């Protein structure tokens, strides 16, 4: 389990941040029957307090512009989404491999939906998502991420543009 999350602040890319949050909302609603609400930056740390662990999906993208998208969900939320995605009983607890696969696919869908709109006619490529478990008390720079509530549970997004 990783004990910290290394995040770099990005320049003014508000349009992309908004677009990726919209993509997450659509994917959550359409694939997981889940609802997204904004969380104020100032309230994010308190909202996530007491969380045991995050599952963080990292998707590297390239094409018209390149970079990395990170999407983190509270682990109990990920387990809830697993049941919703596959129509399973919520009491069924998936193995780590299946859970990580699902969170990776969630991140993949968010990134792909966002880039489909943002790149329009231009081609882009996504690398296979990497998913890791991060301690709930890991230091997160809430100013550098977009905190969200997904079905009333903590989640966040981060974009980094570069190579």
């Amino acid at each position, binding site marked *: 389990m990783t004990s910290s999350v290394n995040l770099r602040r990005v320049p003014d890319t508000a349009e992309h941040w908004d677009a990726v949050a919209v993509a997450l909302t659509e994917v959550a609603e359409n694939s997981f029957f889940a609802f997204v609400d904004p969380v104020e930056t100032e309230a994010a740390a308190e909202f996530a307090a007491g969380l045991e662990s995050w599952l963080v999906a990292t998707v590297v993208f390239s094409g018209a512009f390149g970079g990395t998208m990170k999407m983190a969900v509270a682990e109990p939320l990920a387990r809830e989404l697993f049941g919703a995605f596959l129509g399973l009983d919520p009491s069924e607890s998936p193995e780590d491999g299946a859970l990580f696969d699902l969170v990776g696919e969630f991140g993949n869908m968010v990134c792909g939906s966002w880039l489909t709109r943002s790149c329009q006619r231009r081609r*882009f490529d996504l*690398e296979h998502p990497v998913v890791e478990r991060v301690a709930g008390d890991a230091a997160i720079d809430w100013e550098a991420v977009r905190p969200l509530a997904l079905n009333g549970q903590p989640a966040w997004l981060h974009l980094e543009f570069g190579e």
Partner: protein
Amino acid sequence: MSGQASGAGAGRPLNILIVDDSAMMRMMIKRVTTLCGVPIGEIYEAGNGRDAIAMLEAHKVDALFTDINMPVMTGTELLRAIEQDGRWRDLLRVIISTDGSAARRAEADELHVRLYVEKPFRPEVMRDVLSELATSA
């Protein structure tokens, strides 16, 4: 007749091959497919294009549902291989991908992809896709 598209026709259930590197996505597509009311025969699965070709060689498959971004052999590479192999001329080809860009769609057209489904999709989209494939098989 192994290794050939079987041509469902006349209401015979469609045999389907689902190709996606996410086992959870394959499971979800499989579940939606079996719930949508269109007669389905066998459902085969593969995690990449190379394994998909092995499945096509071993089984009668009417319709292929493939992702694009996959390790080992991508969906685009798989579709090119199918295009170059006369055994699968009649195989109905559907892309299911998060990448819905115009560039990808144009590439899909060149590879005789019949339908293009963007992830995420609602279950009724898959029902419509299967209904269309069933009437044209």
